[in-house]
Protein backbone atom coordinates (compact mmCIF):
# COMPACT_ATOMS: atom_id res chain seq x y z
CA UNK A 1 0.00 0.00 0.00
CA UNK A 2 2.83 2.31 0.78
CA UNK A 3 5.17 0.94 -1.90
CA UNK A 4 4.68 3.78 -4.34
CA UNK A 5 5.26 6.34 -1.59
CA UNK A 6 8.03 4.40 0.10
CA UNK A 7 10.19 4.00 -2.98
CA UNK A 8 10.97 7.66 -3.75
CA UNK A 9 12.58 8.35 -0.33
CA UNK A 10 14.72 5.21 -0.69
CA UNK A 11 15.75 6.31 -4.19
CA UNK A 12 16.71 9.72 -2.77
CA UNK A 13 18.81 8.18 0.01
CA UNK A 14 20.51 5.98 -2.60
CA UNK A 15 21.22 9.07 -4.68
CA UNK A 16 22.64 11.01 -1.71
CA UNK A 17 24.80 8.03 -0.72
CA UNK A 18 26.25 7.74 -4.22
CA UNK A 19 26.76 11.51 -4.43
CA UNK A 20 28.41 11.77 -1.01
CA UNK A 21 30.72 8.81 -1.58
CA UNK A 22 31.81 9.95 -5.02
CA UNK A 23 32.64 13.37 -3.60
CA UNK A 24 35.15 11.74 -1.25
CA UNK A 25 38.69 12.25 -2.53
CA UNK A 26 39.73 8.85 -1.13
CA UNK A 27 37.12 7.14 -3.33
CA UNK A 28 38.29 8.90 -6.48
CA UNK A 29 41.94 8.08 -5.72
CA UNK A 30 41.09 4.44 -4.91
CA UNK A 31 39.14 4.08 -8.14
CA UNK A 32 41.90 5.72 -10.20
CA UNK A 33 44.59 3.44 -8.77
CA UNK A 34 42.47 0.30 -9.34
CA UNK A 35 41.60 1.25 -12.92
CA UNK A 36 45.25 2.03 -13.65
CA UNK A 37 46.33 -1.29 -12.11
CA UNK A 38 43.85 -3.19 -14.28
CA UNK A 39 45.06 -1.34 -17.40
CA UNK A 40 48.65 -2.28 -16.53
CA UNK A 41 47.65 -5.97 -16.66
CA UNK A 42 47.32 -5.38 -20.40
CA UNK A 43 51.10 -5.79 -20.72
CA UNK A 44 50.93 -9.36 -19.40
CA UNK A 45 48.75 -10.44 -22.31
CA UNK A 46 51.49 -9.89 -24.86
CA UNK A 47 54.16 -12.03 -23.17
CA UNK A 48 55.39 -15.51 -24.12
CA UNK A 49 54.67 -18.10 -21.45
CA UNK A 50 56.53 -21.41 -21.38
CA UNK A 51 55.22 -24.28 -19.25
CA UNK A 52 57.14 -27.58 -19.16
CA UNK A 53 59.16 -26.46 -22.15
CA UNK A 54 56.09 -25.73 -24.26
CA UNK A 55 55.05 -22.26 -25.28
CA UNK A 56 51.41 -21.57 -24.39
CA UNK A 57 49.17 -20.32 -27.15
CA UNK A 58 47.82 -16.78 -26.88
CA UNK A 59 44.23 -17.94 -26.26
CA UNK A 60 45.18 -20.00 -23.21
CA UNK A 61 47.28 -17.18 -21.79
CA UNK A 62 44.53 -14.61 -22.25
CA UNK A 63 41.89 -16.89 -20.68
CA UNK A 64 44.08 -17.78 -17.71
CA UNK A 65 45.05 -14.15 -17.11
CA UNK A 66 41.48 -12.91 -17.42
CA UNK A 67 40.37 -15.54 -14.89
CA UNK A 68 43.09 -14.51 -12.43
CA UNK A 69 42.20 -10.85 -12.96
CA UNK A 70 38.55 -11.66 -12.38
CA UNK A 71 39.29 -13.15 -8.95
CA UNK A 72 41.74 -10.40 -7.95
CA UNK A 73 39.25 -7.67 -8.88
CA UNK A 74 36.33 -9.44 -7.16
CA UNK A 75 38.36 -9.88 -3.97
CA UNK A 76 39.84 -6.37 -4.09
CA UNK A 77 36.45 -4.71 -4.55
CA UNK A 78 35.09 -6.66 -1.58
CA UNK A 79 37.76 -4.92 0.52
CA UNK A 80 36.84 -1.58 -1.09
CA UNK A 81 33.13 -2.20 -0.29
CA UNK A 82 34.03 -2.95 3.32
CA UNK A 83 36.10 0.25 3.51
CA UNK A 84 33.24 2.29 2.04
CA UNK A 85 30.71 0.77 4.45
CA UNK A 86 32.68 0.92 7.68
CA UNK A 87 32.25 4.64 8.38
CA UNK A 88 28.94 5.17 6.65
CA UNK A 89 26.72 5.55 9.74
CA UNK A 90 29.38 7.34 11.77
CA UNK A 91 30.02 9.90 9.03
CA UNK A 92 26.30 10.57 8.58
CA UNK A 93 25.98 10.99 12.35
CA UNK A 94 28.97 13.33 12.61
CA UNK A 95 27.95 15.39 9.58
CA UNK A 96 24.37 15.76 10.84
CA UNK A 97 22.85 13.88 7.89
CA UNK A 98 21.38 11.15 10.08
CA UNK A 99 19.30 13.53 12.21
CA UNK A 100 18.59 15.67 9.14
CA UNK A 101 17.11 12.75 7.17
CA UNK A 102 15.29 11.12 10.07
CA UNK A 103 13.69 14.40 11.18
CA UNK A 104 11.84 14.29 7.83
CA UNK A 105 9.01 11.83 7.13
CA UNK A 106 11.52 9.09 6.36
CA UNK A 107 11.29 5.78 8.23
CA UNK A 108 14.45 4.20 9.56
CA UNK A 109 14.09 1.13 7.34
CA UNK A 110 13.96 3.41 4.31
CA UNK A 111 17.15 5.15 5.39
CA UNK A 112 19.00 1.86 6.02
CA UNK A 113 17.74 0.35 2.75
CA UNK A 114 18.90 3.42 0.86
CA UNK A 115 22.33 3.24 2.47
CA UNK A 116 22.77 -0.49 1.78
CA UNK A 117 21.63 -0.24 -1.83
CA UNK A 118 23.66 2.93 -2.42
CA UNK A 119 26.96 1.46 -1.27
CA UNK A 120 26.20 -1.87 -2.91
CA UNK A 121 25.43 -0.19 -6.26
CA UNK A 122 28.55 1.94 -6.03
CA UNK A 123 30.86 -0.98 -5.27
CA UNK A 124 29.13 -3.21 -7.86
CA UNK A 125 29.56 -0.46 -10.46
CA UNK A 126 33.19 -0.09 -9.38
CA UNK A 127 33.73 -3.84 -9.88
CA UNK A 128 31.75 -3.90 -13.13
CA UNK A 129 33.89 -1.15 -14.63
CA UNK A 130 37.12 -2.92 -13.63
CA UNK A 131 35.83 -6.24 -14.94
CA UNK A 132 34.64 -4.39 -18.04
CA UNK A 133 38.19 -3.16 -18.67
CA UNK A 134 39.52 -6.73 -18.39
CA UNK A 135 36.69 -7.97 -20.62
CA UNK A 136 37.61 -5.34 -23.19
CA UNK A 137 41.30 -6.30 -23.12
CA UNK A 138 40.41 -10.00 -23.35
CA UNK A 139 37.98 -9.40 -26.19
CA UNK A 140 40.55 -7.39 -28.13
CA UNK A 141 43.21 -10.08 -27.63
CA UNK A 142 40.93 -13.01 -28.43
CA UNK A 143 38.96 -11.02 -31.02
CA UNK A 144 35.81 -12.46 -29.43
CA UNK A 145 33.36 -10.51 -27.25
CA UNK A 146 32.72 -12.27 -23.94
CA UNK A 147 29.46 -10.95 -22.41
CA UNK A 148 29.47 -13.85 -19.91
CA UNK A 149 32.44 -12.16 -18.23
CA UNK A 150 30.20 -9.22 -17.36
CA UNK A 151 27.38 -11.53 -16.25
CA UNK A 152 29.92 -13.21 -13.93
CA UNK A 153 30.74 -9.77 -12.51
CA UNK A 154 27.07 -9.19 -11.71
CA UNK A 155 26.83 -12.59 -9.98
CA UNK A 156 29.89 -11.67 -7.89
CA UNK A 157 28.13 -8.51 -6.71
CA UNK A 158 26.22 -10.76 -4.29
CA UNK A 159 29.45 -10.99 -2.29
CA UNK A 160 29.56 -7.19 -2.16
CA UNK A 161 26.03 -7.10 -0.76
CA UNK A 162 27.09 -9.53 1.97
CA UNK A 163 30.16 -7.42 2.82
CA UNK A 164 28.17 -4.16 2.91
CA UNK A 165 25.40 -5.56 5.13
CA UNK A 166 27.84 -7.34 7.45
CA UNK A 167 30.11 -4.30 7.92
CA UNK A 168 27.15 -1.94 8.42
CA UNK A 169 25.63 -4.26 11.03
CA UNK A 170 28.90 -4.80 12.89
CA UNK A 171 29.71 -1.08 12.80
CA UNK A 172 26.64 -0.56 15.01
CA UNK A 173 28.02 -2.99 17.58
CA UNK A 174 31.75 -2.30 17.58
CA UNK A 175 34.31 0.27 16.41
CA UNK A 176 34.35 0.69 12.63
CA UNK A 177 37.87 -0.62 12.14
CA UNK A 178 37.08 -3.75 14.19
CA UNK A 179 33.94 -4.32 12.09
CA UNK A 180 36.04 -4.03 8.94
CA UNK A 181 38.70 -6.42 10.27
CA UNK A 182 36.04 -8.86 11.48
CA UNK A 183 34.47 -9.16 8.02
CA UNK A 184 37.92 -9.28 6.42
CA UNK A 185 38.74 -12.14 8.83
CA UNK A 186 35.57 -14.01 7.85
CA UNK A 187 36.57 -13.66 4.21
CA UNK A 188 40.17 -14.75 4.78
CA UNK A 189 39.15 -17.80 6.83
CA UNK A 190 36.68 -18.78 4.10
CA UNK A 191 39.27 -18.38 1.35
CA UNK A 192 41.90 -20.35 3.31
CA UNK A 193 39.40 -23.10 4.18
CA UNK A 194 38.36 -23.38 0.53
CA UNK A 195 42.03 -23.59 -0.42
CA UNK A 196 42.67 -26.34 2.15
CA UNK A 197 39.63 -28.30 1.00
CA UNK A 198 40.69 -27.96 -2.64
CA UNK A 199 44.20 -29.15 -1.72
CA UNK A 200 42.83 -32.02 0.37
CA UNK A 201 40.92 -33.28 -2.65
CA UNK A 202 44.13 -33.75 -4.62
CA UNK A 203 45.33 -37.32 -5.20
CA UNK A 204 48.43 -36.82 -3.04
CA UNK A 205 46.40 -35.54 -0.09
CA UNK A 206 43.87 -38.35 -0.43
CA UNK A 207 46.68 -40.90 -0.34
CA UNK A 208 48.23 -39.26 2.75
CA UNK A 209 44.88 -39.28 4.56
CA UNK A 210 44.34 -42.95 3.79
CA UNK A 211 47.81 -43.74 5.20
CA UNK A 212 47.17 -41.84 8.42
CA UNK A 213 43.85 -43.68 8.94
CA UNK A 214 40.41 -42.32 9.77
CA UNK A 215 40.90 -41.88 13.54
CA UNK A 216 39.55 -38.36 13.74
CA UNK A 217 36.37 -38.97 11.77
CA UNK A 218 34.07 -37.19 14.26
CA UNK A 219 36.33 -34.15 14.32
CA UNK A 220 36.36 -34.01 10.57
CA UNK A 221 32.58 -34.15 10.44
CA UNK A 222 32.30 -31.23 12.87
CA UNK A 223 34.72 -29.17 10.80
CA UNK A 224 32.86 -30.11 7.64
CA UNK A 225 29.63 -28.67 9.09
CA UNK A 226 31.41 -25.44 10.07
CA UNK A 227 33.07 -25.33 6.65
CA UNK A 228 29.77 -25.82 4.84
CA UNK A 229 28.00 -23.17 6.90
CA UNK A 230 30.82 -20.62 6.63
CA UNK A 231 30.09 -17.73 4.22
CA UNK A 232 31.04 -19.06 0.78
CA UNK A 233 32.55 -15.91 -0.68
CA UNK A 234 35.15 -17.76 -2.73
CA UNK A 235 32.47 -20.27 -3.74
CA UNK A 236 30.40 -17.44 -5.27
CA UNK A 237 33.47 -16.12 -7.07
CA UNK A 238 34.28 -19.57 -8.43
CA UNK A 239 30.70 -20.12 -9.48
CA UNK A 240 30.69 -16.74 -11.23
CA UNK A 241 34.03 -17.36 -12.93
CA UNK A 242 32.80 -20.76 -14.12
CA UNK A 243 30.20 -18.87 -16.17
CA UNK A 244 33.04 -17.65 -18.37
CA UNK A 245 34.09 -21.24 -19.06
CA UNK A 246 32.28 -23.79 -21.20
CA UNK A 247 30.90 -25.86 -18.35
CA UNK A 248 27.43 -27.09 -19.05
CA UNK A 249 26.35 -29.19 -16.06
CA UNK A 250 25.61 -27.24 -12.88
CA UNK A 251 23.63 -28.91 -10.17
CA UNK A 252 22.60 -27.81 -6.68
CA UNK A 253 26.24 -28.10 -5.52
CA UNK A 254 27.44 -25.28 -7.71
CA UNK A 255 24.48 -23.09 -6.66
CA UNK A 256 25.07 -23.70 -2.95
CA UNK A 257 27.48 -20.73 -2.47
CA UNK A 258 24.84 -18.39 -3.92
CA UNK A 259 22.20 -19.80 -1.56
CA UNK A 260 24.62 -19.67 1.37
CA UNK A 261 25.51 -15.99 0.84
CA UNK A 262 21.88 -15.06 0.08
CA UNK A 263 20.77 -16.59 3.40
CA UNK A 264 23.53 -14.72 5.23
CA UNK A 265 22.43 -11.48 3.56
CA UNK A 266 18.84 -12.01 4.70
CA UNK A 267 19.77 -12.97 8.28
CA UNK A 268 22.33 -10.19 8.81
CA UNK A 269 20.03 -7.76 6.98
CA UNK A 270 17.17 -8.50 9.39
CA UNK A 271 19.54 -8.09 12.35
CA UNK A 272 20.79 -4.78 10.91
CA UNK A 273 17.25 -3.40 10.50
CA UNK A 274 16.27 -4.54 14.01
CA UNK A 275 19.41 -3.07 15.56
CA UNK A 276 19.08 0.23 13.73
CA UNK A 277 15.40 0.56 14.68
CA UNK A 278 16.41 0.79 18.35
CA UNK A 279 19.51 2.91 17.76
CA UNK A 280 19.60 6.31 19.47
CA UNK A 281 19.95 9.07 16.90
CA UNK A 282 22.31 11.77 18.06
Amino acid sequence: MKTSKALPPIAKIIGYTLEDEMRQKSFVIMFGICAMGVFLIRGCYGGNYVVNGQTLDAGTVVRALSKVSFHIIATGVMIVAALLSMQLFRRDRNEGMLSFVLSKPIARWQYVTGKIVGIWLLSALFMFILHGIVCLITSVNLKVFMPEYLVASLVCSLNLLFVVIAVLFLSLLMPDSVAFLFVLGVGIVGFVADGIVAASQSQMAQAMMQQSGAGSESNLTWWKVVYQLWPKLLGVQRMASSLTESESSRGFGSLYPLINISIYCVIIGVLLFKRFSTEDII
Partner: protein
Amino acid sequence: MIQLKNVTKRYDSLTAVDEVSFSVERGECFALLGPNGAGKTTIVKMLLDFTPPTSGSLSLNGIPSSDARCRASIGYLAENHHIPLSLSGWRYLLRCAELLEINRSDAMDQCRSIVELIGMQGREHAKVGTYSKGMIQRFGLGAALMGDPKLLILDEPTSGLDPIGIREIRQLLESLKGQGMTIFLNSHLLSEVEKICDTAAIINRGKLLVKDAISALVKDGDTLEELFVRVVTG
Protein backbone atom coordinates in the same frame (compact mmCIF):
# COMPACT_ATOMS: atom_id res chain seq x y z
CA MET B 1 -0.34 19.95 18.74
CA ILE B 2 2.19 18.29 21.07
CA GLN B 3 1.14 15.95 23.83
CA LEU B 4 3.36 14.13 26.34
CA LYS B 5 1.71 11.71 28.75
CA ASN B 6 3.72 10.30 31.68
CA VAL B 7 6.86 10.13 29.58
CA THR B 8 9.85 8.46 31.20
CA LYS B 9 13.23 7.78 29.66
CA ARG B 10 15.85 5.71 31.44
CA TYR B 11 19.41 5.02 30.35
CA ASP B 12 20.39 2.05 32.52
CA SER B 13 20.24 3.43 36.06
CA LEU B 14 19.95 7.09 34.98
CA THR B 15 16.46 8.54 34.66
CA ALA B 16 16.80 11.30 32.07
CA VAL B 17 13.07 12.11 31.94
CA ASP B 18 10.76 11.21 34.80
CA GLU B 19 6.98 10.97 34.31
CA VAL B 20 6.75 14.21 32.34
CA SER B 21 3.33 15.28 31.02
CA PHE B 22 2.46 18.51 29.24
CA SER B 23 0.90 19.74 26.05
CA VAL B 24 1.57 22.55 23.62
CA GLU B 25 -1.37 24.06 21.78
CA ARG B 26 -1.48 25.01 18.11
CA GLY B 27 0.00 28.46 17.48
CA GLU B 28 1.72 28.51 20.88
CA CYS B 29 5.32 29.56 21.27
CA PHE B 30 6.63 27.27 23.98
CA ALA B 31 10.01 27.23 25.72
CA LEU B 32 11.43 24.20 27.48
CA LEU B 33 13.93 25.43 30.01
CA GLY B 34 16.31 23.68 32.32
CA PRO B 35 19.98 23.46 33.28
CA ASN B 36 22.41 21.31 31.29
CA GLY B 37 21.53 17.62 31.62
CA ALA B 38 17.96 18.36 32.75
CA GLY B 39 16.45 16.21 29.98
CA LYS B 40 15.41 18.90 27.46
CA THR B 41 17.20 17.40 24.46
CA THR B 42 16.01 13.91 25.44
CA ILE B 43 12.41 15.17 25.22
CA VAL B 44 13.12 16.66 21.78
CA LYS B 45 14.75 13.38 20.68
CA MET B 46 11.70 11.44 21.82
CA LEU B 47 9.36 13.85 19.99
CA LEU B 48 11.28 13.14 16.78
CA ASP B 49 11.49 9.40 17.51
CA PHE B 50 15.29 9.61 17.67
CA THR B 51 15.03 7.61 20.88
CA PRO B 52 12.00 5.70 22.19
CA PRO B 53 10.50 6.51 25.61
CA THR B 54 10.89 3.84 28.29
CA SER B 55 7.24 4.42 29.17
CA GLY B 56 4.50 6.93 28.40
CA SER B 57 3.38 8.32 25.08
CA LEU B 58 4.18 11.28 22.84
CA SER B 59 2.03 12.48 19.99
CA LEU B 60 2.12 15.24 17.44
CA ASN B 61 -1.18 16.32 15.92
CA GLY B 62 -2.71 13.21 17.43
CA ILE B 63 -0.26 10.93 15.59
CA PRO B 64 2.18 8.93 17.75
CA SER B 65 5.69 10.33 17.45
CA SER B 66 6.93 6.89 16.34
CA ASP B 67 4.99 7.30 13.09
CA ALA B 68 7.21 8.90 10.43
CA ARG B 69 4.18 10.66 8.87
CA CYS B 70 3.93 13.06 11.80
CA ARG B 71 7.32 14.51 10.86
CA ALA B 72 5.99 15.77 7.51
CA SER B 73 4.84 18.99 9.16
CA ILE B 74 7.79 19.47 11.53
CA GLY B 75 10.81 21.67 11.01
CA TYR B 76 13.73 20.74 13.25
CA LEU B 77 16.99 22.46 14.09
CA ALA B 78 19.40 20.38 16.15
CA GLU B 79 21.68 21.66 18.86
CA ASN B 80 25.23 21.89 17.43
CA HIS B 81 23.84 21.65 13.94
CA HIS B 82 26.12 20.17 11.25
CA ILE B 83 25.97 20.09 7.47
CA PRO B 84 28.22 17.85 5.32
CA LEU B 85 31.24 19.97 4.38
CA SER B 86 31.19 18.81 0.76
CA LEU B 87 27.71 20.27 0.15
CA SER B 88 26.77 23.87 -0.52
CA GLY B 89 24.07 25.55 1.56
CA TRP B 90 21.87 25.60 -1.53
CA ARG B 91 22.30 21.86 -2.17
CA TYR B 92 21.50 21.21 1.50
CA LEU B 93 18.24 23.16 1.25
CA LEU B 94 17.40 21.34 -2.00
CA ARG B 95 17.95 17.97 -0.33
CA CYS B 96 15.59 19.05 2.41
CA ALA B 97 12.96 19.97 -0.17
CA GLU B 98 13.46 16.66 -1.98
CA LEU B 99 12.98 14.67 1.22
CA LEU B 100 9.76 16.58 1.83
CA GLU B 101 8.68 15.62 -1.70
CA ILE B 102 8.32 19.22 -2.84
CA ASN B 103 8.35 19.42 -6.63
CA ARG B 104 11.43 20.83 -8.30
CA SER B 105 10.11 24.26 -9.32
CA ASP B 106 8.47 24.90 -5.93
CA ALA B 107 11.63 23.69 -4.21
CA MET B 108 13.76 26.21 -6.15
CA ASP B 109 11.34 29.02 -5.27
CA GLN B 110 11.31 28.04 -1.59
CA CYS B 111 15.11 27.76 -1.51
CA ARG B 112 15.42 31.25 -2.97
CA SER B 113 13.01 32.78 -0.47
CA ILE B 114 14.62 30.93 2.45
CA VAL B 115 18.12 32.06 1.43
CA GLU B 116 16.80 35.61 1.42
CA LEU B 117 15.03 35.10 4.76
CA ILE B 118 18.18 33.82 6.48
CA GLY B 119 20.26 36.57 4.90
CA MET B 120 22.64 34.31 3.00
CA GLN B 121 22.26 35.69 -0.53
CA GLY B 122 25.49 35.42 -2.47
CA ARG B 123 26.93 32.71 -0.24
CA GLU B 124 24.41 29.95 -0.87
CA HIS B 125 26.47 28.20 -3.56
CA ALA B 126 29.72 28.19 -1.56
CA LYS B 127 30.81 24.94 0.10
CA VAL B 128 29.70 24.56 3.73
CA GLY B 129 33.38 24.09 4.64
CA THR B 130 33.84 27.82 4.02
CA TYR B 131 30.93 28.84 6.32
CA SER B 132 31.20 30.12 9.88
CA LYS B 133 29.27 28.38 12.68
CA GLY B 134 26.65 31.11 12.59
CA MET B 135 26.17 30.68 8.83
CA ILE B 136 25.72 26.91 9.25
CA GLN B 137 23.17 27.64 11.97
CA ARG B 138 21.28 29.94 9.60
CA PHE B 139 21.14 27.27 6.89
CA GLY B 140 20.00 24.78 9.54
CA LEU B 141 17.18 27.12 10.46
CA GLY B 142 16.45 27.60 6.77
CA ALA B 143 16.17 23.83 6.31
CA ALA B 144 13.82 23.67 9.30
CA LEU B 145 11.58 26.24 7.60
CA MET B 146 11.44 24.33 4.32
CA GLY B 147 7.98 23.12 3.32
CA ASP B 148 6.11 25.58 5.59
CA PRO B 149 6.04 23.35 8.67
CA LYS B 150 3.20 23.64 11.17
CA LEU B 151 5.55 22.98 14.08
CA LEU B 152 9.07 24.24 14.54
CA ILE B 153 11.30 22.42 17.04
CA LEU B 154 14.43 24.42 17.73
CA ASP B 155 17.17 23.18 20.01
CA GLU B 156 19.37 26.15 20.93
CA PRO B 157 18.70 28.04 17.67
CA THR B 158 20.91 30.99 18.56
CA SER B 159 23.95 28.86 19.39
CA GLY B 160 27.00 30.26 17.60
CA LEU B 161 25.29 33.45 16.48
CA ASP B 162 26.56 36.95 17.21
CA PRO B 163 24.24 39.49 18.94
CA ILE B 164 23.00 40.79 15.57
CA GLY B 165 22.31 37.23 14.42
CA ILE B 166 20.47 36.49 17.68
CA ARG B 167 18.33 39.57 17.17
CA GLU B 168 17.57 38.56 13.57
CA ILE B 169 16.56 35.04 14.65
CA ARG B 170 14.33 36.50 17.36
CA GLN B 171 12.65 38.79 14.82
CA LEU B 172 12.23 35.84 12.46
CA LEU B 173 10.66 33.70 15.20
CA GLU B 174 8.34 36.55 16.16
CA SER B 175 7.23 36.84 12.54
CA LEU B 176 6.68 33.05 12.29
CA LYS B 177 4.72 33.14 15.51
CA GLY B 178 2.62 35.94 14.03
CA GLN B 179 1.86 33.65 11.09
CA GLY B 180 0.41 31.08 13.52
CA MET B 181 3.29 28.62 13.55
CA THR B 182 3.68 26.50 16.68
CA ILE B 183 7.21 26.87 18.07
CA PHE B 184 8.91 24.55 20.55
CA LEU B 185 12.08 26.17 21.77
CA ASN B 186 14.97 24.81 23.82
CA SER B 187 17.14 27.69 24.86
CA HIS B 188 19.43 28.99 27.56
CA LEU B 189 18.94 32.59 26.46
CA LEU B 190 16.19 33.39 28.95
CA SER B 191 15.96 37.07 27.98
CA GLU B 192 15.18 36.01 24.39
CA VAL B 193 12.69 33.37 25.57
CA GLU B 194 10.93 36.00 27.67
CA LYS B 195 10.59 38.23 24.61
CA ILE B 196 9.37 35.56 22.19
CA CYS B 197 7.50 32.81 24.05
CA ASP B 198 3.95 32.61 25.40
CA THR B 199 4.46 29.65 27.70
CA ALA B 200 7.41 27.95 29.36
CA ALA B 201 8.16 24.80 31.29
CA ILE B 202 11.13 24.29 33.57
CA ILE B 203 12.55 20.83 34.09
CA ASN B 204 15.39 19.70 36.29
CA ARG B 205 16.84 16.20 36.67
CA GLY B 206 14.15 14.90 34.35
CA LYS B 207 11.24 16.20 36.44
CA LEU B 208 8.81 18.86 35.29
CA LEU B 209 8.87 21.61 37.91
CA VAL B 210 6.53 24.24 36.45
CA LYS B 211 4.62 24.90 33.25
CA ASP B 212 2.56 27.99 32.70
CA ALA B 213 2.16 31.17 30.67
CA ILE B 214 5.24 33.36 30.99
CA SER B 215 3.01 36.25 32.05
CA ALA B 216 1.75 34.10 34.95
CA LEU B 217 5.21 32.81 35.88
CA VAL B 218 7.02 36.14 35.83
CA LYS B 219 5.50 38.53 38.33
CA ASP B 220 5.97 42.30 38.29
CA GLY B 221 9.56 43.32 38.96
CA ASP B 222 10.73 39.75 38.45
CA THR B 223 12.55 38.27 35.46
CA LEU B 224 12.42 34.81 33.90
CA GLU B 225 16.08 34.38 34.83
CA GLU B 226 15.38 35.01 38.52
CA LEU B 227 12.41 32.66 38.43
CA PHE B 228 14.48 30.01 36.68
CA VAL B 229 17.25 30.16 39.30
CA ARG B 230 14.71 30.10 42.11
CA VAL B 231 12.83 27.09 40.71
CA VAL B 232 15.91 25.07 39.77
CA THR B 233 17.83 25.68 43.00
CA GLY B 234 14.68 24.98 45.00
